[in-house]
């Protein structure tokens, strides 16, 4: 019914351009509405991209667990018992879990975020020093800028080697000095630098990571007399496993291993990146939906404006419609013409809004790519699916907008229309 050939297109253009100011003003509302949708959805995506990039220091399915003290007496143990994990617990957990792909023991000198004086030559600084295993990078991805990360041979041979963050290099080494092969002193023990890394992401956590030093977990136990003690566990949840379920199951496994009451709420601490990601995803989905909703409302206001203009236009064009009817235009042709005019105007305005919106997003993206500072905002963009959704909404609204004027036009009898002035 709504097929568009050259003749109809010429008819539509003639009707629209005969009153260009009115066409422009009525189209402005729709164009603005669509522009707002594109900008708000694109900005929400930019924010999402920025936040996710900052979260890039952690893997989406990573989870961390640590022990505290019990709050419920159990199996003859008093409440308030301090809990500790060791390497055997890690091996047992790995063997018994159905939810985890990887369990990495980790320990930090001085406890969680405990900084330690590290010396190289005449330079010194306070940094985090952690014991880790070779697969640790799978949980905490990092960019190795020179050298390598710890490997299994380092762990097996309990080598005194370390991998340092980029800020550690900046502070302990002269500009241009190659740290690889150099030694740093940690609590009086010398470690040879085998690699330098920069953390992924830009958030505060990433800044801390840049000021960290990793040494083999086995060496850590020997050098700092922690033996097999594990500070906390860094883990990867299996693909497709719900983060909340994995967290609860892992806590229960650890509790059973350490003879902790299953309902003890305090004994085992756990933090799941996956859960944070899910929360963030939910938040951003909500933002996208709200952007789309409010943008659509702005669009609706524009479309109502077009309906109003079309209704006024129908009244003014009563004589013209009467002439068309007298010359053989069937009601369907009139209906098609009025809806076609509304669609044409609405879609034209919508496409202008779309092009301007996408153009602005591209310009902002170009500015940010060129080094512009926008804080937590990266790659504002709009995906094709959203554009299609918006166009479908626009099309639906345009048809809706055209129906009322078309019905009004059809209600005009040819003979009455011919009597009309104008």
């Amino acid at each position, binding site marked *: 019914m709504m097929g568009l050939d050259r*003749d109809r297109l010429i008819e539509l253009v003639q009707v629209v351009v005969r009153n260009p100011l009115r066409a422009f003003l009525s189209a402005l509302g729709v164009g603005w509405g669509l522009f707002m949708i594109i900008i708000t959805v694109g900005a929400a995506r930019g924010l999402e991209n920025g936040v996710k990039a900052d979260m890039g220091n952690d893997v989406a399915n990573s989870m961390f667990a640590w022990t505290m003290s019990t709050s419920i007496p159990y199996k003859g143990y008093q409440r308030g018992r301090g809990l500790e994990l060791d390497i055997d617990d890690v091996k047992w957990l790995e063997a018994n879990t159905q939810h985890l792909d990887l369990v990495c023991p980790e320990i930090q000198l001085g406890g969680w975020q405990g900084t330690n004086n590290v010396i190289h030559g005449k330079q010194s600084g306070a940094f985090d020093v952690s014991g880790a295993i070779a697969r640790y990078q799978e949980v905490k991805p990092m960019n190795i800028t020179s050298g390598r990360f710890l490997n299994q041979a380092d762990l097996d041979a309990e080598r005194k080697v370390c991998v340092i963050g980029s800020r550690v290099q900046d502070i302990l080494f002269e500009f241009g000095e190659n740290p690889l092969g150099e030694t740093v002193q940690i609590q009086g023990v010398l470690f040879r630098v085998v690699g330098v890394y920069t953390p992924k992401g830009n958030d505060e956590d990433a800044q801390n990571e840049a000021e960290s030093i990793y040494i083999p977990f086995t060496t850590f136990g020997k050098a700092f007399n922690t033996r097999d003690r594990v500070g906390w566990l860094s883990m990867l949840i299996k693909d497709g496993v719900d983060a909340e379920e994995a967290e609860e199951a892992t806590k229960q496994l650890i509790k059973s291993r350490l003879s902790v009451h299953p309902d003890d709420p305090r004994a085992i601490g756990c933090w799941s990146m996956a859960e944070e990601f899910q929360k963030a995803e939910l938040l951003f989905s909500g933002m996208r939906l709200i952007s789309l909703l409010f943008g659509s409302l702005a669009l609706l206001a524009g479309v109502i404006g077009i309906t109003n203009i079309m209704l006024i236009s129908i009244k003014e064009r009563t004589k*013209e419609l009467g*002439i*068309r009817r007298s010359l*053989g*235009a*069937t009601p369907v042709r009139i209906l098609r013409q009025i809806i076609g005019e509304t669609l044409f105007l609405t879609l034209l305005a919508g496409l202008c809004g779309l092009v301007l919106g996408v153009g602005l997003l591209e310009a902002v993206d170009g500015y940010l790519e060129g080094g512009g500072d926008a804080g937590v905002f990266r790659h504002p963009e709009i995906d094709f699916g959203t554009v299609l959704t918006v166009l479908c909404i626009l099309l639906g609204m345009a048809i809706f907008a055209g129906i009322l004027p078309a019905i009004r036009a059809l209600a005009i009898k*040819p003979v009455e229309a*011919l009597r009309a002035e104008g």
Partner: protein
Amino acid sequence: MLNLRGIEKAYPLAGGTLPVLKGIDLTIQQGEMVAIMGSSGSGKSTLLNVLGLLDGFDSGGYDLDGVDMSGLSEKQAARYRSQFPGFVFQSFKLIAFKKGGENEALPLFYQKVPRRERQKRAMEMLGKMGMDDRADHLPSELSGGQKQRVAIARALITEPRVILADEPTGALDSSTSHEVMSVLREVNGSGITVIIVTHEADIAAKCDRTIRLHDGVIIEDGRSGEVVEPTANGAGSTD
């Protein structure tokens, strides 16, 4: 052949109806040139609208070349309007934003005639009207006579069987009126029925037959020279 039998038509008014046509019986043969005269409110324009299927009627019968036209849907009426009659109006009824040629070709657009064919036929018809140099002019750039020529060309472009003209010279000076009537006479000469609603006796005199209406009733129907002059009570008034 147009055949009306006992056509009645009333317009609804607040608190009642206003009868406009009261049992019109009329037959017009193909190729006739007929003037319909009558005072204002006599029902002559309504009769023309009924003949052209622009308006319906309440009772009676209307046959067009033997086909019953009563009870047509709006879609069917539109189809007939696009093929059977050509309309010429007093105030030309050209679409202001369309050029002369486009206005003229509009009936063909509704007959779904291809664009190229429409343009060709429009130019031919304008040529016959001596208006081929005005095809690209907007109505506002044409004189009254030129507009009416375009309107006549538009009425003729579908090769109709009848031209229905409502006061075709009403907005023109006497010289231009004469030209327009010459054109309509020529059209009639080619076998097309021409029915003209007019107030003007000299226009009616150029037709073969004159029908005079008064208060929704045909009071005279005869050869143009034989129809009586207006009377004091308004019957037969031509003003």
